[in-house]
């Protein structure tokens, strides 16, 4: 490990700890009856859009279908998040806020350009760093992104030919 990566890891670790508390301390105790959220904020959508081509590298179709497939994966991810309980959506909102805010995006995620401009390399190393982080919080955030994006793509029949899955059988009778 070079001095620079060590420094970065230390900074990221410190910031993560700082934000861990914030991330896991719900801001208020809403009484039941007030929570029903819209879909994703534009910032969150940009983050998922940036992560999709990396998590699904090698899985997404090439050529003309590629953009369509990425768009469908994004829409399915958004739909999946909208179907989660309010408490879980709130945690994800906090995660996306952390990733969207420039200082924390740089320090905690190590992504130095805004998400729409982030390179595949920087997103890849962000995912690897969080997956292998010594902080359970960052590991769990990685797992959440992993689950949302992969679930969104492999629920789509467009993904099935490449994995040799013919889809559910027809049960037509009579």
């Amino acid at each position: 490990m070079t001095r620079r990566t060590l420094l970065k890891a230390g900074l990221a670790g410190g910031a993560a700890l700082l934000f861990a508390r914030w991330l896991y301390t719900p801001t208020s105790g809403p009484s039941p009856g007030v929570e029903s959220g819209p879909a994703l904020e534009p910032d969150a959508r940009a983050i998922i859009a940036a992560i999709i081509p990396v998590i699904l590298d090698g899985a997404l179709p090439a050529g003309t279908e590629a953009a369509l497939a990425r768009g469908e994966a994004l829409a399915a991810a958004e739909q999946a998040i909208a179907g989660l309980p309010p408490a879980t959506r709130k945690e994800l909102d906090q995660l996306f806020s952390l990733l969207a805010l420039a200082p924390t995006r740089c320090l905690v995620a190590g992504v130095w350009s805004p998400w729409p401009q982030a390179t595949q390399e920087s997103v890849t190393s962000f995912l690897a760093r969080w997956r292998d982080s010594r902080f359970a919080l960052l590991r769990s955030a990685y797992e959440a992104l992993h689950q949302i994006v992969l679930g969104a793509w492999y629920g789509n029949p467009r993904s099935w030919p490449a994995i040799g899955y013919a889809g559910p059988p027809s049960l037509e009778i009579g």
Partner: protein
Amino acid sequence: MATEILRQSKLPDPFRTGLASGWKVVDASKLTQDRTIEADVAIVGTGAGGGTAAEILADAGLSVVMIEEGPLATSSDFQMREAEAYPQLYQESAARKSKDKSINILQGRCVGGSTTVNWTSSFRTPLSTLDYWAREYGLVGFSAADLAPWFERAERRVNVISWPVVPNENNDALRRGAQALGINVGAIRRNVKGCWNIGYCGMGCPTNAKQSMLVTTIPAALARGATLLTRTRGWQLEHGSGRVTALTCIALDERGTGPTPRRIRVQAKTFVSAGGAIGTPALLLRSKLPDPNAVIGKRTFLHPTVVSAALMPERVDGFSGAPQTIYSDHFLESAAPDGPIAYKLEAPPIHPILAATTLPGYGRTHAGWMHELPYMQVVIALMRDGFHRESPGGSVELRDDGTPVLDYPLSGYLWDGARRALATMAEIQFAAGAKTVMPVRPGARSYASWTEARDAIASFAPGPEAATFVSAHVMGGSPLGPDPRRAAVDTNGRYHQLENLYVFDGSIFPTSIGANPQLSIYAITAKLATGLAQALDRR
């Protein structure tokens, strides 16, 4: 599209026929004003416990109201598509997590509860578990002999049969590999009638072959005049002078995830909590019931499960055919309760979303595994938690919004079990002909031989790097027993501190079961609910 074909299919849907005949079913997401409902018995939850109790109590001539958090979905709605089924039929879209997010928990949330989406595996409670309960928890009336008639009754009711069809290759590889190593295996009995062997049990049975609560006891209770409230969350029990007086319910929105402003007040003479081992403790905790010994929600168990994926030279097609037909109790039967953790071996269905979200890594590594999906063979090891002092399980807590979360810390005792189980599974898979085996853990490495896998697994440091844990069985948290210092409910299932509150579900088990729990819940609930029906009849 296949979906459209099925939507127009002519397969019978007896539940819809029943609805047309006037069954009383209320979808609370459509309420425009608050409601009050009266009944002899209010039952929160319609899974294995609630469904069984509803039929027995309705048969006894009592007026019954069933309260279900999830939606009513019936065979015509079951499209065999994970992307539809998981958000519709499972708690938290099949992504429910333990508090530190380290365990993904599959749990049903629909009419019929987990019985609507389970994989039909039917085991009687192991003798070793019943003996342990008698010895350690003083349970009387729950020996194998005491329960035998109740198991027979439950097996008749949900048509538990020896499965006459050849196992699919995913299960047969488990059998073959185990037998090659001298490891005992058995055939899993299933609660099905006229099963088409298509393999989509986890997404709701489209042919009504699975004899879940959705097609057996709930229709029977409705035919007897019971009322079913759906998208209705049993929220708080009102109590005073040693009795529960009413239950406040929250009507949920159309997705069934968020609350609406509408409330339903249920006034009943007797209340049954059957919301499962996360839902029941949550209801009891929210209601601030007397709990002098702080037992509610503690000792909640998961059968924490580790996963081993292999690539086989021939097609496995683990998405096709009855999902679970072979098991091994070799590492359970030989284990002493006070020794290292014991585990049961089974095989899971391998559908795209379930596989993709469970397999580690991303990008080309992950895509490479997914590309081999038809050749993938998977074995799972379910840890028998709760039998050892180093396996106290988890605790159900309430979030600020009153919804529950299970805090389940993973201990060294479990990491040790994970390592042994991963080694066992890899050895079996190589013996069955695997080309490579990947112990499922964040690191996403696979091994090309048994010796390579064995050495690598032995070197896994205990901790989150060693294994990924999942769960499909939640038990405990409101344990049954004669001693109020250790148990929430007495041996009749009645809450120790209140006269007219009963708990009939998997939360009453003092430990995990050590086998898929549905049949244990059916049989023990049948015994307890029959006792309750008799007690109410005498009043």
